[in-house]
């Protein structure tokens, strides 16, 4: 028998979830058509019916720790079948957005990232950091930020902003983001487990790390293969876009690491030859990122029944700008257009930094929370 739950509705939560894209959540009259329609909802305590009433009751604590919201892949099958047009899929998406904000610290940054008016400020931060850090190092005579590159020479980004300066800024940012994720994930895992036990979805037992390992492997395979996407009825085409973007990020991550080792360990300076196989991978991933971004954009633009909030556009925009600035920087460099190439590179760096710094607070955070939730579901054998 489940424990007694004291319901203390949070009216602010209802309003915020509404603003994040779940504006129709109150229309639900609990017929549970959504839970039946959902191709990936488990048979035992299926979502999203119970999430819908919890949301309309403003039960924030129950929802942000409910890992079922992360099992949903927002395919929209429930939205099209909902007799009240309450859009359960959108509501879950909005709750996920809210949950990301809740688990990330500092909260102020969460709020800023969810607010379109703050975007210029957020983008100004990396620009200022690069410039300020550059001037500081320049004042020590290191000349890592160079605005007076002689014309006619080889165009090489490091001539403008030295790779050391880039790495000195990016590497701590990357690990800072990991740290924010780690803190959020720790709280999320604890809450998720407590809630699952309270809801009767899991038992409070000692953790079997062997089983956890198996669950991780199985979940990663599921994600790589995009199995959950293909189970969805509506919006199947999203699978391709997501796959392109995911694999391109993985590819670019590998490429970055390779060149990091080349730079710092093997001391091989760039620019690298286009014949270099690592370069092939980089280019292929860059193209995939751009194509994936365009597909994401097209899907969002053509799906009229799917609501798209700033939260969603932020990620689509980030993907596209990252891909485009990266590829165009290289193309301008090869075309000998120095000014354009250096400018694009600066913009590219701003977005790369934003990618690292803001991921734990943005929609992209799902890569951590969803993976964790799916692994937990796999581990507890949720069916």
């Amino acid at each position, binding site marked *: *028998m489940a424990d007694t*739950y004291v319901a*203390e509705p949070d*009216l602010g939560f209802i309003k915020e979830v509404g603003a994040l894209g779940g504006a129709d959540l*109150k*229309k639900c009259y609990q017929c549970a058509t959504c839970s039946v329609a959902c191709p990936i909802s488990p048979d035992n305590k299926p979502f999203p019916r*119970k999430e819908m009433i919890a949301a309309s*009751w*403003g039960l924030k604590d129950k929802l942000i720790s409910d890992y079922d919201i992360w099992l949903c892949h927002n395919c929209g099958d429930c939205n099209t079948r909902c007799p009240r047009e309450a859009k359960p899929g959108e509501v879950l998406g909005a709750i996920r957005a809210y949950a990301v904000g809740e688990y990330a610290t500092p909260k102020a940054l969460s709020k800023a990232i969810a607010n379109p008016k703050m975007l210029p400020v957020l983008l100004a931060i990396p620009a200022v950091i690069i410039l300020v850090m550059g001037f500081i190092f320049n004042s020590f005579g290191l000349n890592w930020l160079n605005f007076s590159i002689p014309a006619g020479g080889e165009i090489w980004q490091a001539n403008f902003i030295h790779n050391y300066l880039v790495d000195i800024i990016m590497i701590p940012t990357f690990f800072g983001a990991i740290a924010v994720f780690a803190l959020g994930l720790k709280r999320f895992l604890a809450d998720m487990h407590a809630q699952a036990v309270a809801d009767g979805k899991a038992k409070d037992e000692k953790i079997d790390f062997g089983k956890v390992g198996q669950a991780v492997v199985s979940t990663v395979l599921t994600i790589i293969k995009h199995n959950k996407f293909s189970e969805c009825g509506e919006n199947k085409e999203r699978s391709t876009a997501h796959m392109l973007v995911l694999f391109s990020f993985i590819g670019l991550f590998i490429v970055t690491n390779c060149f990091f080792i080349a730079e710092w360990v093997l001391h091989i300076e760039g620019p690298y030859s286009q014949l270099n196989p690592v370069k092939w991978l980089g280019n292929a991933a860059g193209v995939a990122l751009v194509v994936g971004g365009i597909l994401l954009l097209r899907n969002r633009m053509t799906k009229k029944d799917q609501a798209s909030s700033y939260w969603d556009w932020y990620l689509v925009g980030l993907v596209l700008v990252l891909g485009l600035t990266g590829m165009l920087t290289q193309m301008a460099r090869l075309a000998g257009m120095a000014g354009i190439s250096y400018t694009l590179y600066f913009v590219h760096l701003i977005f790369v930094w934003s990618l690292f710094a803001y991921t734990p607070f943005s929609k992209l955070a799902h890569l951590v929370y969803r993976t964790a939730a799916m692994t937990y579901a796999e581990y507890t054998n949720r069916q």
Partner: protein
Amino acid sequence: MDKKYGVYICKGCGIGDALDIDALCEVPKEEGLPVKVHDCLCGKDGVEFLKQDIANDGINTLVLAACSRRVLYDVFRFDGCIVDRVNLREGVVWSHPRSEFAALTAEEKEDENNFDRVQMMAEDYIKMGMVRVEKIDLPEPYQLESLSKRILVIGGGMAGMSAALDAAKAGYKVTLVEKETALGGHAAAWRRQLPIANPYDNLIDPIVADKIQAVESDANITVNTDTIVARLAGEPGNFTVTFKKPGEKIAFDVPYPLPDEMKVDEKGNDLDAEKLHEAFLKYNEGKEDILQFDPDGEMYGAVVLAAGWQPYQPEGEEFAHLGFGELPDVVTNAQFEEIAQNGKIIRPSDGQEAKSVVFIQSPGQGNDTDFDYCGAVTSLVALKQAKYVREDYPDDGKAFVFYQHMRTPGLQENFYKGLQQDPGIFLTKGEVAKVSKNGGGLIVDADNTLLGEKLQVKADLVVLGTGMVPATKDDPVVNLAYRQGPAFRDNIDLFKGYCDSNFICFPYETQRTGIYAAGAIRRGMTVEESMEDASGAALKAIQCIESVNRGVAVHPRSGDMTFPDFFFQRCTQCKRCTEECPFGALDDDEKGTPKPNPARCRRCGTCMGSCPERIIGFADYNIDSIGSMVKSIGVPSEDDYDEPPLRILGLVCENDALPALDIVALNRMSYSADVRLIPVRCLGSVNVIWIKDALSQGMDGVFLMGCKHGDDYQCHFVKGSEIADIRVKKIGDALTSLALELERVTQFQVAIDEYDKIPQIINQFVEEIEELGPNPFKGF
């Protein structure tokens, strides 16, 4: 009236193909009646052919052997003529197709032991039709000596005021009486009201003030506040009404019937009629007898009863688990409305703002029913009151509704939808287990909610969605000076005090003709529903007055001109008719002789069925007419054939069973050709003498087929089929004395949509009778 007979046989619709028409013509000829055959009686030619005979030959008593009397009745209506329809089409040829009941071949006809069951059936029905027209007369309408067309509306709430306005608008004078000192009823004390017009999505300001204004300024309406009905005597079109102030005691207060225990003497023997009356007068000392009319009374034609409701008063510990009675912050919805009317929603205990309010719609304790006397209206009231909380505290007010049923019929669904969108209103199905104290506030425990098995909610105030108790539950209100008593008898018990006859089939009709119910005395309802109800009841009242004016019956025998006629010289004052009449139409006098009030009568004939002396009858429907039809049925015996066919009589209620039998025929379903069916007005009108006659002339079995009785009765006359069932059970002694098996007489209950079961019911009964063997009286 000098009857000049004519028998007409129609050959259309397959009758001519299936039957030997020449042989049929022999039946009237044997009786010396003229008979004519036509290819299509209902066609232009056919009707003209009949009209010619009426005009030229003076035929005024016609037996039309054609189709069911339930069709083409307007085509075959000839003013001033008695017309009987012999149902050859549905009753014989369609329900007994030659493919199953083959005609005799020429060879077979030569053997006298062969017979044609279908032909026999048609011949019997023609004989029955001929004897019926011989025994009946043209009815003459019952006219009141004086007729009042004024309408009395009891109750000055939303329903009563609407009924008064509707009746006044139709040109009738109306008196509206209200026991309180002002009009308006409960609606006058509400903060806001449920929507009554498109788009039905939000609360509106109460419309009661406009209604009061309209009533008070209507020249056709007289308003008497601070007034109740002391007694209402007489019959529709001629009610004598005595009014009084609430609480007054006057001589024309209505007397109450003697309780059963006072109807016997010390030895337990029944008192005779005169002693009974003496005891009755003593029991009602200071009050005039019901037959004494108030000379100062006012005259009315019909009554609309819109006495409304009272909030349910929980008894003692009834809702102790919900804290009611013990915790001051647990209130009923009526008390909550009072709080809301007085200003912001506050806690009764300390006057603090109540920002978290829980509305409970069902008392729980393992039972999923709502509070007593609840319905869709209480769901809607909970939503309305939830909105009050949000109106008073838009930023942080929270209203929770725990329901087992959330009913928002019709376009009130829009109101529900609109309200659902409010972020501070929380709805869930669930069973509230208990309400307890939690510091300064309350805590509500609910099980099996949509949010989980066990749920707790903190509340400042808890509201119980208790019901609307009809005013007629404990008080007759109408105070009828009727021998059966001042209230609506049987249905009040059946419907938990609600006042109605059958709210599905006959809305507004009560068990007392001329008195029509509207509003919350019929069931809990909203203002909108009450207003619609009021129109219905007002129209019923007008219909009743106009029917009485023409001397005809009201629904369900609308337009019937006959009324029960009593041969008083042979009355034994047994009072059975007075007591059994479902509508309390009869008042017996001090000697126990029934006093008919034909305008109160619905013409079901239950009195005729009840009378052991068989002195009650109608012009076209009486003991003799049906009895003679029974006797005219041919009962072949072994003297006629080696293996004579069975003869089974079916007395069939014409309200549902007869239409169902017509549907059987339309669907070409078939049943035994050994039964002979006689339509009756209601099974209540079946006099056991007919059954005895049938059996003593050698018929092998008798069944009654009529409406369902019991809690979900469908009898069009409320009690008829139930009374018939009792009579059939009591007939056992008579059967035993004739050495006949009890199984030879039975009663079947069918609904109109159960036509598909009827052939099997009939055939199975025939089989059972076959097993019992032929009636030993056959041939005597």
